[in-house]
């Protein structure tokens, strides 16, 4: 019997016009991990940020994370505690790639965590971070926004599901 696909495309979308945010909803709970690939830009040098939730995104101060970044010739680390709209990475009018991996996103026995990696040449920054959403609810909604500006038209969001077995 042939094995099922381990790495599957759940949804994909390309923005037809600039937007303040983009939401992926009705994410099925049938996978083990999720990978979200963002390929695009923003209308100015700002940041990509993200909220997650079940049914609707959590806009409360229930997020925390640790960042490692390189900016020009400076390497640094930062923390966000009790954040309401956690950081993904720097963005600019130059196209960049950001990859977010959610582990055990549908497991209702654990708090939700994810890893982000990406970089933006336009803002001379590379980012790596680990975040936690202090909720045991399954993630079925993800909202990406531009912090202080719009996400550019042409930006793509592709969500993959990874099955453990």
């Amino acid at each position, binding site marked *: 019997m042939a094995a099922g696909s381990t790495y599957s495309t759940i949804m*994909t979308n390309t923005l037809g016009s600039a937007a303040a945010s983009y939401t992926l909803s009705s994410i099925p709970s049938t996978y083990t991990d999720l990978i979200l690939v963002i390929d695009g830009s923003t209308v100015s040098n700002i940041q990509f940020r993200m909220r997650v939730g079940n049914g609707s995104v959590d806009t409360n101060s229930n997020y925390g994370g640790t960042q*490692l970044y390189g900016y020009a010739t400076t390497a640094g680390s930062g923390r966000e505690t009790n954040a309401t709209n956690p950081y993904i990475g720097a963005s600019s009018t130059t196209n*960049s790639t950001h990859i977010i991996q959610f582990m055990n996103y549908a497991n209702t026995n654990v708090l939700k965590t994810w890893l982000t990696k990406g970089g933006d040449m336009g803002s001379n920054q590379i980012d790596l971070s680990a975040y936690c959403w202090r909720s045991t609810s399954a993630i079925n909604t993800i909202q990406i926004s531009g912090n202080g500006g719009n996400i550019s038209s042409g930006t793509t969001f592709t969500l*993959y599901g990874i099955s453990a077995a």
Partner: protein
Amino acid sequence: MPNTMTLIASQTLSTTAASITFSSIPQTYTDLKLILSARLSGSSNVGGTIQINGVTSNAQRVIFGTGSAVNSEQNNLTGIHNSNTYTTNTFSNSEIYVSNYTSSNNKNYHYEGTTENNATASYIGMAAGVVNTTSPVTSITTLAAGDTYTANSTFYLYGIVKQ
């Protein structure tokens, strides 16, 4: 349902090589992922640049750690590989991800990799870069930057399709 992630081609070196090229890349995927397990013949562990469609002009932002320090730089090196001073028969692990490789945008990519060494000195790094070509990607070359990859270094190219 077709596979989302498919092996396009692979190369395993039986002798040293200064570069590895994957050409005639089919245009039927969305993203590309190149996974390397490599070792260099020389004593430098900073090796590897990437060419897309033969274009060498690229710039990238790199952050890397050595086990005792962290640095941020702008350079065009896309590879942190085990040198011949590292633990015998040990290879680095790295990945280069090129998103939307058939688009008419300049090609941005993400690199991450680590050396493996039973010693206090080892490297882990991550980079974001861009290659200034708006043509769809039909070839990818990874070069050992003045050095050569040793035998048993492996290179796997995967295609990822979003629909």
